[in-house]
């Protein structure tokens, strides 16, 4: 879609399989992230958004494997790079923060011990650690070093994870639902911190989220995933205000809103098909109000300015929007 020959990260036709059961879970995903860009992968559970993210840093669970496509990091295909090479990249060039900061930290070690471990890996100094703790919002960095994870709130623990991830000055930060486990008001503070740091340091961000509100706040570009495929992508403001795929459109219309108090929501019928039910045709067709027989065959990717949707009937959606 967008011409970005100079992309820092370029994923082409990535597929991920559960090898034993021969089930495809990520099915031909392509994604570009330029230096300093903030990109969101949004989708429901089982859409393949987390697996796509984990494939980049090669932390797929046992039994899952990259079965096709390429992941090019600054020109080097790392989809099958050695584990030694991946260790060099992790933390220094690509870092990751996870959803649940409590399970990502060792409960019996002090924060200082854990940060020291991360610092050693990326050759950062104690001064670097203290500066970073100050940056993520700790007023007394020295004191935090002596504390253990259970003494900190969820928001503070996630700040520690962010500090740890950024110690090696990575060029790309992967964040898998980084605020989902936090209270709504704390969510926003942590999100703002991630945003500010990416702006300051020029670190690119790949945010994985199910929350369109979070995506709207932070991402320049968004890719919407459904059943292992990217069904729509483009600039965030375009996709969220003028969606071209019926799934994105339905998601946006079905969510309860603070703007008006309605009696009923426009629910999306049916349920998300499981991987064993996936077909070559459009996988949203059964739930889609625009579906026709055409949708039984593989839908084309239709491109607009700065936006693309994989759908036979993008024209119908546009016509409906115009009519209403």
């Amino acid at each position: 879609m967008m011409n970005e020959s100079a992309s820092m990260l370029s994923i082409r036709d990535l597929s991920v399989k559960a090898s034993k059961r021969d089930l495809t879970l990520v099915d031909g995903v392509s994604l570009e992230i330029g230096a300093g860009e903030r990109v969101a992968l949004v989708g429901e559970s089982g859409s393949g958004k987390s697996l796509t993210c984990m494939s980049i840093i090669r932390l797929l669970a046992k039994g899952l494997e990259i079965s096709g496509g390429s992941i090019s990091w600054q020109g080097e295909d790392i989809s099958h790079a050695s584990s030694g090479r991946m260790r060099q990249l992790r933390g220094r060039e690509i870092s990751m923060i996870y959803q649940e900061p409590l399970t990502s930290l060792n409960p019996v070690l002090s924060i200082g011990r854990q940060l020291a471990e991360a610092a050693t890996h990326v050759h950062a100094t104690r001064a670097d650690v203290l500066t970073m703790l100050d940056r993520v919002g700790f007023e007394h960095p020295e004191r935090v070093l002596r504390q253990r994870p259970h003494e900190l709130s969820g928001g503070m623990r996630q700040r520690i994870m962010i500090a740890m991830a950024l110690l090696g000055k990575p060029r790309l930060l992967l964040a898998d639902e980084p605020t989902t486990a936090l209270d709504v008001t704390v969510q926003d503070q942590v999100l703002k911190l991630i945003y500010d740091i990416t702006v300051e340091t020029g670190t690119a961000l790949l945010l994985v989220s199910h929350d369109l509100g979070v995506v709207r706040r932070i991402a320049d570009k968004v890719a919407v995933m459904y059943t292992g495929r990217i069904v729509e992508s483009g600039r965030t403001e375009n996709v969220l205000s003028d969606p071209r795929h019926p799934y994105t459109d339905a998601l946006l219309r079905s969510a309860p809103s603070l703007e008006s108090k309605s009696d009923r929501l426009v629910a999306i019928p049916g349920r998300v098909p499981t991987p064993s039910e996936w077909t070559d045709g459009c996988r949203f067709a059964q739930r889609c109000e625009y579906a026709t027989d055409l949708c039984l065959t593989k839908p084309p990717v239709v491109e607009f300015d700065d936006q693309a949707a994989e759908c036979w009937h993008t024209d119908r959606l546009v016509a409906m929007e115009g009519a209403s």
Partner: protein
Amino acid sequence: MTTPVEPAVSAVGVNKTFRIAEGFFGRKRDFHAVRDVSLSVPQGATLGIIGESGSGKTTVARMLAGLHAPTSGHISINGAPVFDAKGRPTAAGRSAAQMVFQDPYSALNPRMNVRAILAEPLTVAPAASRSEIDRRVNELIDQVGMSSAALDKYPHEFSGGQRQRLVIARALARKPPVLICDEPVSALDVSIQSQILNLLKDLQEELGLTYVFIGHGLESVYFMSDRISVMYKGEVVEQGTADDILLRPAHDYTRQLIESSRAQPFKSRRS
């Protein structure tokens, strides 16, 4: 149906303290989870409760449903007390308000088929007859929008949304006047949540149910509720109609909640 004058749900001056130990051999101390909470929900209405984790909203829910006795204060459903003087749940209290839990994956016994899951509450004294149970189970599955073919299946054969429908059906089995819904959609896929919220609204209208609806996301609570109570650190810090709370929030926490829900893109200093 007669409309009693008293509210469907009433809580007056309710406190709850938990005795907790600091460490394994540590000193015991009291943790004040809920402080002087008073609520009143008219027949057929929905009261929303919002608050961050630790605000006491789930503790209030469990007390209203008769699962925790309050340390002090009075709770009644349709005028009948939920607990006796010794803090034991009364017979009326046990059946008056039913809970719909957050996680439909852990709320259903995986070894029971749907028919047995829905019939179980009906076998508690005063038990219904076999034919009555059979009729009621079919009625319940229909009310939550599923086919009777589902009755012979097991929980793992259903998606999260369908499981939540089963949890709701089970809660309705003994025809309680009140449902306490504790974050009933937050574990579900985004595209399924609106189905379940619509179902809850339909059931409310059809059966004249009264709801207490708890959430941490403002949008679904605003959609469901006539009135909203905001809880913060164990206390109700603000209550009013849903629109009052949204348009004229008085408490800082409420304001923050509304602001973060009305997500505007963060501003970049570069552009």
